[in-house]
């Protein structure tokens, strides 16, 4: 048998629980419920590709024992992921996309769906497994409504982040600032998980392989937009977690932004420090989908980031591009592994419990 790495403490920053419309119905009032029940409304699906993998977007072996869609069964997920791999905590990042591109103009329905989703998530996942922590879903196309939803569920002890949908308006825009204010108020991090479509220009690329390769570009756009628009200067307590874009693009982004800052900073006088410093302090990047890296290659990226605190481990269970905690990363030194597999995430989500005996 090939050697397997010993199990370690894992805080998994990207686990997808999945809802079905029938699960959501009890959490929806009319008229919203009726559009699904009587009018057979379904959210428009955008991805124009036939996923060229074994079971669509999912791991083929994550189909539930009764043949249900991957991610719909807490018990099976506990067995296949949390128990098997020794998770200390997992952050749920959902599968609902109430972004304008998914909902067209029907923002009212998006708002109702996000609320129903949050209630369903709390009742069926967060309150049933002490290891699971959740994400507040919002319809960000209505910032005032989104803030209301954050006020409604954001203080739940197991909600640790707000998932902000990606769309045509970038995240540095003052339009979103009330959401950041609410995040700070409730000690919630902002999570970016790529939604669809992440490409700003030219629409969808022709092939799935192009889209999947270029995921980090959506992340780069949002990070640069937030930093240069002064979000972290205005909200000094804000934590941003960039989920499912990997981290190998980050050294380039930091270097590029610093050089630009030296040359063009007069255009953005509200940004008062080197962009790389701001990113080091406020932004965290999850590993998945990680490239195959040798230890030497991995450490070169860490060195260029100038910090061991910025990378957090994620599996993306149960999706096809899942990364195994035992296999995906090269062997690193013990202290760095501890940071990547758990401690960096613990710091990035201030609401996660601290280890016994520690002082926050």
């Amino acid at each position, binding site marked *: *048998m*090939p050697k*397997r790495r010993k199990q370690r403490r894992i805080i998994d920053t990207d686990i997808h629980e999945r809802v079905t419309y029938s699960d959501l119905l009890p959490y929806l009032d009319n008229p919203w419920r009726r559009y699904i029940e009587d009018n057979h409304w379904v959210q428009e699906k955008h991805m124009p590709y036939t996923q*060229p*993998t*074994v*079971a669509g977007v999912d*791991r*083929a*072996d994550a189909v539930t024992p009764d043949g249900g869609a991957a991610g719909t069964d807490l018990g099976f997920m506990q067995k296949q992921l949390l128990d098997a791999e020794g998770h200390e905590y997992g952050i749920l990042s959902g599968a609902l996309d109430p972004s304008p591109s998914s909902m067209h103009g029907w923002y009212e329905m998006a708002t109702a769906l996000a609320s129903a989703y949050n209630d369903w998530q709390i009742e069926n996942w967060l309150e049933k497994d002490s290891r699971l922590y959740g994400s507040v879903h919002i319809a960000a196309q209505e910032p005032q409504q989104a803030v209301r939803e954050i006020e409604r569920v954001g203080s739940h002890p197991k909600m640790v982040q707000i998932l902000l949908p990606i769309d045509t308006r970038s995240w540095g825009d003052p339009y979103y600032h009330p959401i950041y204010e609410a995040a700070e108020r409730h000690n919630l991090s902002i999570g970016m998980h790529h939604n669809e479509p992440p490409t700003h220009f030219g629409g969808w690329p022709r092939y799935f392989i192009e889209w999947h390769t270029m995921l980090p570009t959506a992340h780069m756009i949002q990070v640069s937009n937030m930093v240069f628009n002064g979000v972290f200067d205005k909200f000094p307590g804000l934590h941003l977690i960039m989920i499912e874009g990997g981290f190998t693009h980050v050294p380039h982004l930091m270097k590029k932004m610093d050089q630009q800052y030296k040359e063009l900073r007069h255009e953005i006088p509200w940004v008062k420090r080197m962009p790389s410093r701001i990113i080091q302090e406020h932004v965290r990047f999850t590993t998945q989908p990680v490239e*195959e890296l040798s230890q030497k290659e991995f450490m070169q990226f860490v060195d260029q980031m100038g910090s061991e605190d910025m990378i957090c481990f994620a599996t993306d269970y149960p999706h*096809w*591009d*899942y*990364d*195994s905690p*035992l*296999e*995906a990363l090269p062997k690193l030194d013990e202290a760095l592994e501890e940071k990547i597999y758990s401690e960096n995430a613990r710091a990035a989500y201030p609401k996660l419990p601290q280890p016994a005996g520690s002082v926050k």
Partner: protein
Amino acid sequence: MREVVCEKEDIHPGKMRSATLGKIPIVVCRTKDGEFYAFANRCLHQGAPLSEGILCGDTKRTDIHGNYEYIKDGEILRCPWHALEYDIKNDGVMLAEPDKKLRSFQVAIEDDQVVVYK
């Protein structure tokens, strides 16, 4: 080492099943033309159990952009996670990186039983 996996008819053409050879987890595949092949049941990438994947075909290499031709139906073992593909009739070679291949085992049919040897 020798291990009887199952009766020949237990694996239909185009199907596969997991088994063990001593302590080694293996996957036994039967191609559509009825031949048997056995490999270590562990993907070379991140170790997924290959027996949870599928036996499918490949698209033929071409010089013409947009041209699709489906070949080797049932001869490609595709991983259940990141979908890496192995050519079971060609020694378990990984299609994307032909210098890598699965560990393979010899299979014989003896008295209508599928027997795997190391």
